[in-house]
């Protein structure tokens, strides 16, 4: 009974941990705006967590600079299973305008399996909500596979 209860509820309360891997702050601001009264992601159960240990979904913004890469990977590895990695904006997916720069180690998918990409520069809050709900769905599937 517990197992089913847990598996059912996993998708309903995804907590986010946000990593800024060298972002220009555009996506960061959009992510915050998702939690404002206008969009209010909390009604879907989303919540920003302060520590990766509490998180289910890791949201990475920024082009993953060489300086930040080991830190990003460490923080991601500290998130307990099941976890879901969301790249937000174009930067972590490809490097965007910073592609080819001497200081860029991205894209993130070279290092960890990325579950959801939310494109946009920066993505519209609705798109972020879309991406996060998709991530929550994936999370639930992952949890189901753990049983």
């Amino acid at each position: 009974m517990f197992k089913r209860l847990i598996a059912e509820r996993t998708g309903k309360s995804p907590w986010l941990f946000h990593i800024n891997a060298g972002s220009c702050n555009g996506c960061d601001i959009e992510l915050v705006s998702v939690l404002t009264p206008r969009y209010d992601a909390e009604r879907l159960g989303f919540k920003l967590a302060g520590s990766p240990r509490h998180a289910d979904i890791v949201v990475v913004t920024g082009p993953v600079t060489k300086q930040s890469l080991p830190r990003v990977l460490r923080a991601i590895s500290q998130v307990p299973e099941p976890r879901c990695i969301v790249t937000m904006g174009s930067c972590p997916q490809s490097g965007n305008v910073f592609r080819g720069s001497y200081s860029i180690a991205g894209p993130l998918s070279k290092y960890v399996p990325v579950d959801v990409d939310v494109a946009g520069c920066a993505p519209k809050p609705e798109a972020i909500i879309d991406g996060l709900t998709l991530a929550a769905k994936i999370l639930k599937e992952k949890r189901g596979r753990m049983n």
Partner: protein
Amino acid sequence: MDFPFMKEAISQLFSKSSCAMYPAVPSQAAPGYRGRIEYHPELCISCGMCERVCSGNAITRSVENLEDGRDKITLTFNLGSCTFCATCADFCTKHAIEFTGDYHMVATKEEDLLVSGSFIKAAPKKKAPAAAKTEGCQTPAGKESGVKPRDDGKPVNDPARCVYCTLCAKKCPAQALTVDRAAKTWTLDEDKCVSCGTCAQVCPKNCIIM
């Protein structure tokens, strides 16, 4: 101690929320929003301007030589690398690139974020076989074209290759160039020209010779 929002807190308890309720209530992007790229291959003339101006290297063009001598040209827009600055659309003389209001650019696979389209470019006219043979921009300008460079260092246009994209006119710092797309004319105001060479540099077809 001062609590500026105390009253609001109480009054809002009884008022309707200002929440957009997004997934339940679909929402439209504001006019002018630059979302998912829509590409109209039928309009494209493969000038390559978009590719050159793209800051995020999001546009790739691939050419496939068909058996009948024609080329199948495919443009791929990687939304995962796009900054949505719309410079490509601005520069596209043919309006083949369009930024729609669709913001649902969410994907679990990278392929989902690619927008591509292809068209088959007709074989070039016999009139300028050299140009057809040297497809692309590899050939240095003027080598095999019929126009000779002028002695005074001012630009000359090769009408055989010019697609009248007006980029040279836009970029000309002295506004010495006038290009009429409809009439397919390219005129140079020699008094104004400063022989800077910007037009030759920016020309996507390398048809301006200095």
